[in-house]
């Protein structure tokens, strides 16, 4: 499975996550966001970029509780709460935002 943008192909798994994380780029994020029915705003990009940094540092996708806490630390308490994150990513900030950010599905996410 996969998709193609401007001649570049992206391979995805059965749940729509990118198989090769190094293939991720902004175009892929935009495509994945449309698939997830998310209208990307600056606030979304803030979380996406945060996740990419987190993955770069730790090589894992954070669980939602860990993501919430870490966002609060970095971007302030008004953003480090589940209400804010679920408003941005209604189907689960960990699952949905990780998918758009080109990360694997968080460990422990059912």
């Amino acid at each position, binding site marked *: 499975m996969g998709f193609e943008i401007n001649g570049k192909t992206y391979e995805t798994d059965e749940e729509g996550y990118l198989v090769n994380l190094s293939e991720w780029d902004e175009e892929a994020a935009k495509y994945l966001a449309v698939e997830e029915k998310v209208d990307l705003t600056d606030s979304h990009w803030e979380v996406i970029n945060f996740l990419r940094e987190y993955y770069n540092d730790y090589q894992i996708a954070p669980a939602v509780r860990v993501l919430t806490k870490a966002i609060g630390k970095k971007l302030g308490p008004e953003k480090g709460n589940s209400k804010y994150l679920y408003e941005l990513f209604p189907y*689960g900030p960990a699952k949905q935002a990780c998918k758009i950010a080109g990360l694997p599905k968080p460990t422990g996410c059912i």
Partner: protein
Amino acid sequence: MTESTGGIDMDEESSGTVKKFAFINRKAPYGTIYALESLEVVLISAAFDQDVSLVFVDDGVYQIKKGQGTKAVGMKNFSPAYRALEGYDIEKLYVEKESLESRGLTEDDLVVPVEVLTSEEMATLMDEQDVVMSF
């Protein structure tokens, strides 16, 4: 907010019980799946708010050794994930003194802060646990 425990019903009584879990890591990080599997179980266990300890003994100490170059074996270097454990509120990491010394390693060679225990102290620690899982 229980994405990670979704679908699992815990009644009030069981969700209030905190048990002491120790995950014992004995094997080198690559070559077998034990180290990675252990790490995944540990990350999942964090969602259940239990009292979790991680123990590194024998070749398991190599799992948290700095400077793992995995390119040649074609594996992902997952050692940075141990530094994420703090964010998961898993802060009890123990390493056996004898295992470190016999491999010529010190605490400075490790990617995370740990408490070094002698073999005897380790036995006491394991004795205090409700659940011990060995990988």
